[in-house]
């Protein structure tokens, strides 16, 4: 991806990654030199179940264009059950955002294990592409943060 064109839309993307699987998966993507756009910034959380829907709304409020949550595959959670709760919470939250008219591609959950560097990189590439196709987030931000 080039940044030569200054007018090009550069999305802000927040990726919450659980410490045990997905953060390690992102590390593996790094050590395997599997590129994905610099628009993605990762926040480390202990478990996908630590991610409060409020964090996701907060990201959008402050100007994020996309938010993705990555955790251990169901059944592999370091804390046994965390991602099962995260899965339900996110399903309902995303459904609600869709319901109030926020483009449903702006949020995503992906299960990425510590061994899936390739999947992590691919997922991020796909997600950035999706956000590019949706364009700037105008429906869920606070205008005061936009100047």
């Amino acid at each position, binding site marked *: 991806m080039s940044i030569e064109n200054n007018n090009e839309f550069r999305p802000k993307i*927040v990726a919450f990654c659980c410490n045990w699987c997905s953060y390690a998966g992102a590390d593996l993507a790094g050590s395997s030199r599997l590129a994905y756009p610099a628009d993605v910034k990762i926040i480390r959380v202990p478990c996908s179940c630590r991610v409060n829907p409020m964090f996701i709304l907060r990201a959008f409020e402050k100007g994020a264009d996309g938010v993705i949550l990555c955790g251990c595959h169901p059944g592999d959670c370091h804390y046994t059950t965390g991602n099962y709760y995260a899965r339900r*919470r996110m399903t309902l939250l995303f459904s609600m955002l869709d319901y109030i008219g926020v483009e449903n591609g702006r949020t995503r959950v992906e299960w990425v294990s510590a061994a899936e560097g390739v999947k992590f990189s691919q997922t991020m590439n796909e997600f950035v592409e999706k956000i590019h196709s949706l364009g700037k987030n105008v429906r869920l931000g606070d205008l005061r943060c936009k100047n």
Partner: protein
Amino acid sequence: MQRIGVFVCHCGSNIAATVDVKKVAEMALLEPGVVHAEDYQYMCSEAGQARIQAAIKEKNLTGIVVCSCSPRMHENTFRSAAEKAGLNPYMVEIANIREHCSWIHKDMEEATKKAVILARAAIAKVNLNAPLKPGESLVTKRALVIGGGIAGIQTAIDIADAGYEVDIVEKTPSIGGRMSQLDKTFPTLDCSACILTPKMVEAAAHEKITIYTYSEVEAVSGFVGDFTVDIRKKARYVDSDKCTGCGVCQEKCPSKKSLSEFNRGLNTRSAIYTPFAQAIPNVPVIDTDACIKMKTGKCGICEKVCQAGAIDYQQKDEIVTQKYGAIVVATGFDTIKLDNYDEYAYNQSKDVITSLELERVMNAAGPTKGHLERLSDGKHPKEIVFIQCVGSRCADNRGKSYCSKICCMYTAKHAMLIRDKYPDVNVTVFYIDVRTPGKNFDEFYRRAVEDYGVNYIKGQVGKVIPQPDGKLLVQGADLLDNKQILKEADMVVLATAIEPNPDVRKIATMLTASIDTNNFLTESHAKLRPVESPTAGVFLSGVCQGPKDIPETVAQAGAAAVKAIGLLAKDKLLTNPCTAKSDQLLCNGCSTCANVCPYGAISYEDIEVNDHGIRETRRVAVVNSALCQGCGACTVTCPSGAMDLQGFSNRQIIAEVDAICR
């Protein structure tokens, strides 16, 4: 306000080739709270760490951010470096500008921009960090093993050999478990009792081991290192100290019609009984449901014949309360009930038996004294059909979805033993697959087929129909020849699925250990922590965790013992300080958090609060930091935001979000 130092690592050229590290340091200096920023070749080197320590001291830093490789690499390095310089290790945050930045981006400007933002997020977080201190808890140097089968015995011996006190709690009157019911063991065909009995004796004789038979765990409280357990010693009505184990009482007991549990109900025992000859302890118990004295008040023969005067009809259940540092669950298994499998006529014909019943039939101490005979008429069978996977690998919900793992091998064993001892008996095995992945397992199975002429048919049996002449008509399919098979058999043996002992559910609840849909106890990690329960201080031994054969069970028993020993060897436990914490003034006491806690770390207390002048008693959540592992599930489920996670607090994560999005 924090005084933050930022240290940007070149990592040789790993970072510096793509990220303008000087620029990152320069930009970091503009962030709130940052009073120092520098870059260096290798921050993780001795020299790099020395620079960090010098800056901490010189500039009175209250927090640091290291922009370097993944925290999974060097977080601990930098934490201990900081600690040595007098900074709380939890005031260190890492901005991962290598794996998450320099290694995946090529454009220097772009990578630098991102590195600046990642540093900014880490700075925003550390601005809100608070010093954390790992808690300490003392370890009680005693282990509890629940279950006295081979798994429990082995675990107990291993722990005791390491020098720690161990208590075994066994529900039945004797230790020994399922293995004591087996006749021979695969793939070596040695006698089960011959290898088990010495272990039982060893356990009983071990000075560090206390055995509570005919006892059950009644209540568990506490946490890793400091469990308190109530054990109910059920009344035996026989004084263990006085009893000499002579056995006269059992001989003279007039009530002899109770079905023998040990022999799977295939014969009977007396009301006062030991389950089997080699029972440990060799002290009988009185079955109050069968005892005439207990029921009518008349009889009392055992009391009269007991020379030792050990019979005590007045004995009461006794509760023993004991503290433990570690608990090993070794509750084992049973075969499933076959009520859902009418087609195999188990309930209609005495000659349709389970494999475990066959073990008793084949055993010299069993109901037929080891003679292979039909239980209906005592006749010698000529034709025996084995049916595999009865209730295992079941797609519908009649049986179990999993493979019981041991059936293929013990069926080969049975077939071989029968063919060896009674060459006149034809043995046919209906199977779905034969699974023999173990040392010498496939060789063993091939011997059954090739050397002993056991007839293996790939296919399932649809129905077993008892015939008027006492024979059993077996309707099956041969999938390889693609034909229906009708076979007359004298006996049918069902390789019945095994399931965890039903009592395990109660025990798991008491231990707050998680359990899966099949009632197997869940391990902490399927691959990397297979003998640890997610509940700290609780370990898993044997089939309670999943189907296993004897060598695997013993291996896991040893592994569980080692884990327990590792815990008991410590005097104190340092607890992860990144634990959940409930704000008592915000807590509603609604119990939602406890519902999602996988560790049972949250309890509720009624406490007196002073909420801005309102004094009242409130039910509030209390987190046991020794149990909490810091996943954060509770923080999100808490509607009032009372529950927060130290080290990953709401405000910290929000600060990171804000820093990234700005």
